[in-house]
């Protein structure tokens, strides 16, 4: 690694929760969607889980809200280097949806997809055990469209491109199938603590 002459960085207190190469965006929440933000009303939103499951199912907005809710309070990290500390999302744990469809023993991975057709792949282990949500609110307010509203996947322990905006469904598979950014050079798993930004990391 080269040292850059004259570079000292911002005066900084090291934050133990900051993964390598990240900086604290403070109150900003950058938007980095590659596609046009959809006009999607809650009444038109659905979430489907199918693939290697015993009982494929589709939830409407009302159905999903009838499931037990929970909150995520913690940090989020974007592959483009910004992080946000201490944010609060409200929604339903993905475990609740998966329990209803009963994944097959052969299911190891999933592709999450958006109402825009955006896709992203994840190991099932990253989606279960209270690690992922379908999120409807941010800091107590409905999720804004440019931030994935009315509902988005939330997988906060991975880089945020994995948390598909305007989430439409999850297809369970027995293999890993690269999604939109993964096909565009990004890492298959995207763990910020191992700085897995791009394929090859």
């Amino acid at each position: 690694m080269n040292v850059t002459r004259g570079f000292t960085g911002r005066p900084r207190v090291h934050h133990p929760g900051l993964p390598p190469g990240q900086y604290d965006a403070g109150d900003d929440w950058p938007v980095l969607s590659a596609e046009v933000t959809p006009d999607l009303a809650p009444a038109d939103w659905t979430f489907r889980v199918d693939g290697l499951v015993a009982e494929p199912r589709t939830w409407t907005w009302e159905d999903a809200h009838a499931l037990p809710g929970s909150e995520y309070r913690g940090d989020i990290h974007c592959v483009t280097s910004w992080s946000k500390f201490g944010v609060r999302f409200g929604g339903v744990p993905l475990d609740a949806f998966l329990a209803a469809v009963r994944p097959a023993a052969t299911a190891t991975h999933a592709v999450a997809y958006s109402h825009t057709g955006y896709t992203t792949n994840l190991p099932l282990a990253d989606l279960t055990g209270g690690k992922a949500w379908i999120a409807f609110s941010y800091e107590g307010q409905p999720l804004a469209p440019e931030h994935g509203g009315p509902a988005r996947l939330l997988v906060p322990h991975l880089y945020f491109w994995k948390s598909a905006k305007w989430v439409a469904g999850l297809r369970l598979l027995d293999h890993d199938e690269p999604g939109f950014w993964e096909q565009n050079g990004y890492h298959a798993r995207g763990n910020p603590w191992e700085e897995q930004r791009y394929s090859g990391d």
Partner: protein
Amino acid sequence: MTETFAPETRFAVPGRIAVSQRAAAVWQTATLTEIRRETPYAATFRFAVPAWTGHLPGQHLMLRLTAGDGYTAQRHYSLASAPDASGHIELTLDHVEDGEVSGWFHTEARPGDRVEVRGPLSGFFAWPGDRPALLIGAGSGVVPLMSMVRHHRAHRLDVPLRLLVSARSPETLIYAREYGPETTPVFTRSAPEGVPVGRLDARHLAPVFAESGDWEAYVCGSNAFAEHASRLLVAAGQPVDRIRIERYG
């Protein structure tokens, strides 16, 4: 819980463009060779990167600075230069308020300094030069679009290319000396005598769509600008699967 039919998604994400992923995996040393002032707030930095394997117009890279104590800061920056065989690349950076990386570039950097880069990146916001391109940028969002314009000129490509570039004023228009007939500037705060002031709107798009309806659209700017421009495009009839957006901030 009743199951209801899931509507087919519209699959609106534009398709990927084939690019080499090889260089994305390694950090390379880039040596600063030249700095050119573009506006009071933006400058172009030219680097020698001997092992640069080339890029497509529109692609970006990741840049890393390392402090003496081992602290690193990384940022994504769009490539401003057209692809060529010179072993050099150019980035154009705004001086971001409180920016620790752009701050170093604008206050400390001088020829001979070394940084690290990896890339090129993105098989999404990239223009292979094979399809009509409608480019819409604001502020420093014009940087990757200028790479496309330069490429189009360097190779005298026949395929149509149009650029709409928004800036607050002529003084803050990046690359002002370089635009040609392919470009329409839009000034949002102040403009030369006789030139209207205002946001990009449907009137700016109308002549472009009168010329052709076969564009691949590339939008680059702040989120607010990208939302505005993409909605104008949709209203003008541009298919959402041919609108590629790169946002910053």
